[in-house]
């Protein structure tokens, strides 16, 4: 009974934050809502007796990736989105894709005949079972993923390096040597925030992912949550 209440609480929180994420115009509010979604999902994982996945969810997504996203939003002082007239074609495509997704989910739920209850002792989300799985059965995918992540890091680094001479904010993203420029960036950016913002989005996503993946690779073991994606 208590767990049902908690489920309703976390699920409601996740849904509310997700709706707010889509509806909000201010990018920072969107980011905060996304953090709320991640934290609520972590709560749901705990209810499913998978504490390790919940912890990794909070550490990697809420604690690393979203911190970088909020950091960049703050640094660039991104303004509120303007209200654009909605395009009927995009709406139709969105509705169609959403319908397909819901259909898939419904099909999967329908095809699972066993009732979806979780016993506390399945051991799926426990630290030891994930560790054992990663280093025995799923060793090859694990290693391949880490090589992929390494490539992403190197790629992000080289992208940021090349842009360093022209783009101040990129140099800051590159990590170590950008420290001293940090103090000056927002002041300089006030004039041409538009142009910088035009360059940043793809870059920040890549760098943010790379930073988080650095953390993953260094032993925080986010690979399990990666599998969930």
């Amino acid at each position, binding site marked *: 009974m208590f767990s049902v209440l908690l489920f309703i609480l976390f699920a409601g929180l996740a849904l509310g934050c997700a709706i707010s994420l889509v509806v909000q115009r201010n990018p*920072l509010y969107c980011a*905060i809502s996304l*953090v709320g979604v991640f*934290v609520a999902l*972590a709560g749901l994982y705990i209810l499913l007796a998978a*504490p*390790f996945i*919940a*912890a*990794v969810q*909070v*550490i990697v997504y*809420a*604690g*690393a990736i979203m*911190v*970088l996203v*909020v*950091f960049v939003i*703050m*640094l660039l002082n991104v303004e509120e989105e303007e209200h654009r007239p909605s395009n009927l074609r995009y709406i139709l495509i969105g509705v169609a894709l959403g319908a397909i997704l819901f259909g898939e989910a419904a099909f999967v739920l329908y095809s699972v005949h066993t009732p979806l209850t979780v016993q506390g002792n399945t051991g799926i989300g*426990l*630290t030891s079972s994930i560790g054992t799985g990663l280093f025995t059965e799923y060793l090859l995918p694990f290693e391949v993923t880490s090589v992929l992540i390494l490539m992403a890091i190197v790629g992000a680094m080289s992208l940021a390096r090349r842009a360093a001479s022209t783009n101040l904010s990129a140099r800051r993203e590159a*990590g*170590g*040597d*950008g*420290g*001293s420029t*940090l*103090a000056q960036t*927002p002041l300089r950016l006030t004039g041409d925030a538009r142009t910088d913002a035009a360059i940043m989005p793809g870059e920040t996503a890549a760098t943010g992912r790379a*930073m988080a993946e*650095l*953390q993953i690779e*260094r*032993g*925080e073991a986010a690979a399990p949550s990666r599998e969930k994606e």
Partner: protein
Amino acid sequence: MKLLGINIAFVAVLLIVAYTVLAERRILAFIQGRLGPNRVGYGGLLQPFADLLKFILKEEIIPDKSTKFVYVLAPMIAITAALMTIIVYPFGPTVNVPFLGPVDLVITRLDIGLLYVLGITSVGVYGIMLAGWSSNNKYSLMGGLRASAQMISYELSLGLSLVGVVMMSGTLDLYDMVGQQGGYWFYVIPRWNIIPQFLGFVIYLISAIAETNRVPFDLPEAETELVAGFHTEYSAMKFAFFFMAEYVNMFTVSMLATTLFLGGWQGPFVETFPPLGVLYFLIKVVFFLFLYIWLRGTLPRFRFDQLMDFGWKFLLPVAILNVILTATVMFFKG
């Protein structure tokens, strides 16, 4: 039962935190050849309560141009995240309490205790970031940016410095980790993790100081450049929340250091008289708190580029080296 434990632990922690502030002011004063606050109560012992009253009675100012919702939310996040980690630390061994029988002096035991601590700590950054952003003040923004850059940089080496201990103990449950550190090598040297993991301990200590934004890494609130950093616009109880959050964070990182490296409540004669464990635990934690204050009275502040260089180019590689060394030694020892 559990609620009672939580209440006792929280009150105890907040009291200790309040007296840490007083101790800091007195010790700093002595380091600098002054007396410090000694008028309220005997030797200034009631000063924390006077401060609290003052915080409550002062006017709450919300700047006109601030983003109000986030401005109010930020101190709440900071203090909540700081207080949430307390529940996993083992304060002492199983103790026989009159009328209640044997009681574990830990509020809850989590299979993922250490990860829980790291996760909550990483969420605590939001309090500072959002405070800096929502105040709509350039000093606050500067402080918030510095704090978040610093905290995400040092979080990496902090987490990595603990990997060695986790590898050695083979568990993430803090209670088990303390249990494993009982006993002695050669009948004299305690089996604390600090001896095999000395490198990890030093890295942890440095990154923990940076993580809590304390001297010599207190760039986010460098008063000579930034007024007061991210909490420049905050007043009254909201400011007190940030203030408390900083000291609670100091306290929790000290507890983590004690638990992981200094054997938690382990010490001589704990087996025969368990309540001694709480005393040992407190002594070790207070030692770290004193170290914080001592450093503040001794060291000058880093420059920001030095801070970043040190974190990324020195601490992080050394932390990785520590993991590799530990793994190698463990492999050959079998």
